[in-house]
C-alpha cells in the first residue's frame, strides 16, 4: 500500500525516527523550536518553515536547541561537538547566510580529517534551505551548492523527492563526514510521493535514473528534476525519448551513471538552478566532455539562470528560473544536432 507523503512530511519523519534511534543526535538552529525565553509557547514555530515542529516536545531542550543569531558560533559548535561524541544536525536557515559562517564549514569541518592525518571524524549534518521561487529576492533565493561541492572534505546532498529526502537524510546523519543537506524550499509542500514508514537509507554517490530514455540524457538536481520530467513528458509527444538522471548527491557524484547514459544517448543537457559560472552544470558537462567525449553526437547544452542575482518581481524571477520550456528547447536543439 502506497503511503503518500510530502517532502516536508518525509523529512520530518526522518528527523524523528533518527533522533529516536540514536540519542547522540542533537538538532540546533535559530527558532528550530521557537519561543526560547519568550512568554508564550515553546515550539512556537518549529523552524522558520515548521520543519522541526514537535521535536522539542518529544526530545526535550537538551537535544533540540534554539540558538542566537550567531551562525559562526553555533555551526562551529555543531562541528566541534561532532568531534566530541555527538552527531549534530544543525540548521543554516537559508544557505544564503553562509557568508557569516563559512569558515567553520569549509576550513574547519571539511579539513580536520586531512589536516590531522586521518585522525578525526566530524559527523555533522548541516541542513539548509535553498532555491528561488518564493519572491524572496537576491539574499534568500540562492542555491550555492557549487561553493560547497568545490571544497574537498564536504559531502553535498540535494534531494528532489520525498523518498530521497528521507533516505538521504538517514544516510547523512549516519555518515561520519560533514554533510551539507540542501532542501529546496519550494519542494516542501509541492511534491508528494511514496515513502515507506520504516527507516531506510540511500547510499551517497548513487544517481537515480528517474526516467529511462534513449535519445537525450538530461541531468538535473532538486526542483529541476521535476521540470526536466515535465519537459521530457512534453517531448515524448514529439517522439524525443529523454532519459532523466538525478545525481541526488553531488559530492560524491555518481559519475558512471551519467557517463553510461551519455554513452547510450550520445547527447547531454545539464539543467541547474544554481548560478552558471563554476557551477554544477559546468562540472557535469566537463566530466562528460572529458570522459565520454567519444560517445557525444552533439554539443552539450547547459540550461541555467543567467549570470545575475535572483530578482524580486515575480515576472523577473519566473523568467530567471530555468523552465520546462527552456529545458525542452535545449533538448530539441541537441536532439537535432
Amino acid at each position, binding site marked *: 500500500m502506497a503511503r503518500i507523503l510530502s517532502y516536508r512530511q518525509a523529512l520530518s519523519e526522518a528527523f524523528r525516527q533518527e533522533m529516536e534511534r540514536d540519542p547522540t543526535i542533537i538538532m540546533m538552529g535559530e527558532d528550530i523550536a521557537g519561543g526560547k525565553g519568550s512568554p508564550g509557547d515553546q515550539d512556537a*514555530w518549529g523552524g522558520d518553515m515548521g520543519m522541526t515542529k514537535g521535536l522539542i516536545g518529544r526530545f526535550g531542550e537538551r537535544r533540540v536547541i534554539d540558538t542566537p543569531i550567531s551562525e559562526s558560533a553555533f555551526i562551529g559548535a555543531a562541528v566541534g561537538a561532532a568531534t566530541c561524541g555527538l552527531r549534530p544536525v544543525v540548521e543554516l536557515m537559508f544557505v*544564503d547566510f553562509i557568508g557569516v559562517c563559512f569558515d567553520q564549514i569549509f576550513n574547519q569541518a571539511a579539513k580536520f580529517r586531512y589536516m590531522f592525518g586521518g585522525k578525526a571524524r566530524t559527523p555533522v549534518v548541516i541542513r539548509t534551505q535553498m532555491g528561488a521561487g518564493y*519572491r524572496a*529576492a537576491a539574499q534568500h533565493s540562492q542555491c550555492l551548492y557549487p561553493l560547497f561541492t568545490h571544497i574537498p572534505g564536504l559531502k553535498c546532498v540535494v534531494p528532489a523527492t520525498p523518498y530521497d529526502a528521507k533516505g538521504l537524510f538517514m544516510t547523512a546523519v549516519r555518515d561520519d563526514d560533514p554533510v551539507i543537506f540542501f532542501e529546496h524550499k519550494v519542494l516542501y509542500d509541492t511534491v508528494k510521493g511514496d515513502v515507506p514508514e520504516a527507516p531506510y537509507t540511500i547510499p551517497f554517490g548513487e544517481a537515480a535514473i528517474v526516467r529511462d530514455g534513449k535519445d537525450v540524457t538530461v541531468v538535473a538536481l532538486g526542483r529541476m528534476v521535476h521540470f526536466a520530467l515535465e519537459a521530457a513528458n512534453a517531448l515524448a509527444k514529439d517522439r524525443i525519448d529523454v532519459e532523466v538522471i538525478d545525481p541526488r548527491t553531488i559530492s560524491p557524484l555518481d559519475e558512471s551513471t551519467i557517463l553510461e547514459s551519455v554513452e547510450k544517448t550520445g547527447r547531454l543537457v545539464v539543467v541547474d538552478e544554481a548560478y552558471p559560472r563554476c557551477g554544477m552544470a559546468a562540472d557535469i558537462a566537463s566530466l562528460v566532455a572529458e570522459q565520454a567525449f567519444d560517445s557525444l553526437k552533439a554539443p552539450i547544452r547547459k540550461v541555467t539562470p543567467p549570470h545575475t542575482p535572483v530578482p524580486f*518581481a515575480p515576472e523577473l524571477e519566473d523568467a530567471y528560473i530555468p523552465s520546462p520550456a527552456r529545458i525542452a528547447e535545449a533538448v530539441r536543439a541537441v536532439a537535432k544536432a
Partner: protein
Amino acid sequence: MTVTSALQLNREKLIEAYRKMATIRAFEERVHELFEAGELPGFVHLYAGEEASAVGVCSHLDDEDRIVSTHRGHGHCIAKGCDVIGMMKELYGAADGVCRGKGGSMHIADMAKGMMGANAIVGGGPPLACGAALAAKTLGTGKVAVAFTGDGGSNQGTTFESLNFAAIFKLPAVFVFENNGYAETTSSSWSVACGDIVGRAPAFGMPGVQVDGFDFFAVHDAAGEAVARARAGGGPTLIEVKLARFFGHHEGDNQSYRAKDEVEVLRRDNDCLKRFRARTAEAKLLDGKDLDAVEREAAALIDRAVAAGRAAPRPTPDQVPTDVYVSY
C-alpha cells in the same frame, strides 16, 4: 556640542516628525492588509510600533548622512526621506519601483537619500555603516552613519566587530539597537548574555544609552547627542532603543510565543504615536486637530501609493540580466 531637546523643537519640525511616524504607520498597516489579501509577493517584516525610533534618529540626519537598515526596513526608509510611492511600487515589484522591482521589501534602498539598504542578512549592515563613516571621516565631509540593528542582530559577529572597529577609529557612527524583545520567536532577554544590549557599550569603549523607544522625545534626544558627538569627532555611540513590534516577525507569523494579551496592551499603552500626541498636548506644543490632519494626509498618501503600485508598469524578462555590473 549643544543639542536641542525634542521638546524645544519648533512646530514645523514636530509636525514633520509626526508626519513621518504616521506615514510609516499607515504604510505598514496597509502593507499588512495587502499582504493578507495576497496582493503583495515576497516576505515582509513590518515596522509598525517602532516608528519613534527611526524618526527620532533620522530627524538628525540629512541626505548625505547614511543609514543602513535591516530586513525590517520600511520605517527607516520613510524616516530617511525615501519616496513613499516608489517604495510601495517596489513592494509590488513594479518596473519603476525604487529598486526597479529587483529588490523588494528586503532590499529596499535609495542611495540618493543616504539610505544604503534594507538588508536580508542579519548583521549585514553594521560593517557597511563603518564604511560610510570611514568615508565621511576620510573625506572630511562632517557626515555621519547610523546602523540600525535588531536585538537578534546584536549577537552577530559582524556587529560586534563593527562596534570595535568604529571605536578604535573613532568613526562618526551611531549604532542603534532596536530591541523589540524578539528575534523571530527568540527572546532578547535570553539571547543577550548580559541582559541589556547597552551593557555591551563599555566592552567597546564607547558611550552607551538605553532609551524608551515608545517615546519619540527620548529617542530624539539620545540620538541628537550621539549624532552631535559623532559629527564633532567624538566617535561612535551605542543606543539601545527598547520597543516592540505590533505585528508578527513577518507576515504570516502566528506569534504564539508572545504573551496572550501582549500586543493588545502594547497597542493600548505603548503606542508611540499616541505618546507623541500626549506629550505634545501636555506641553501645549501641538493641537490634536493638527495631528489628525497629518494622519489624514498620510492615509491619503498611502492610498495614492497603493493606486500607483497597482497601476505601475510591470518589469519584463529582458530586464533580468541588466543592472548586474556597471560594465562587463
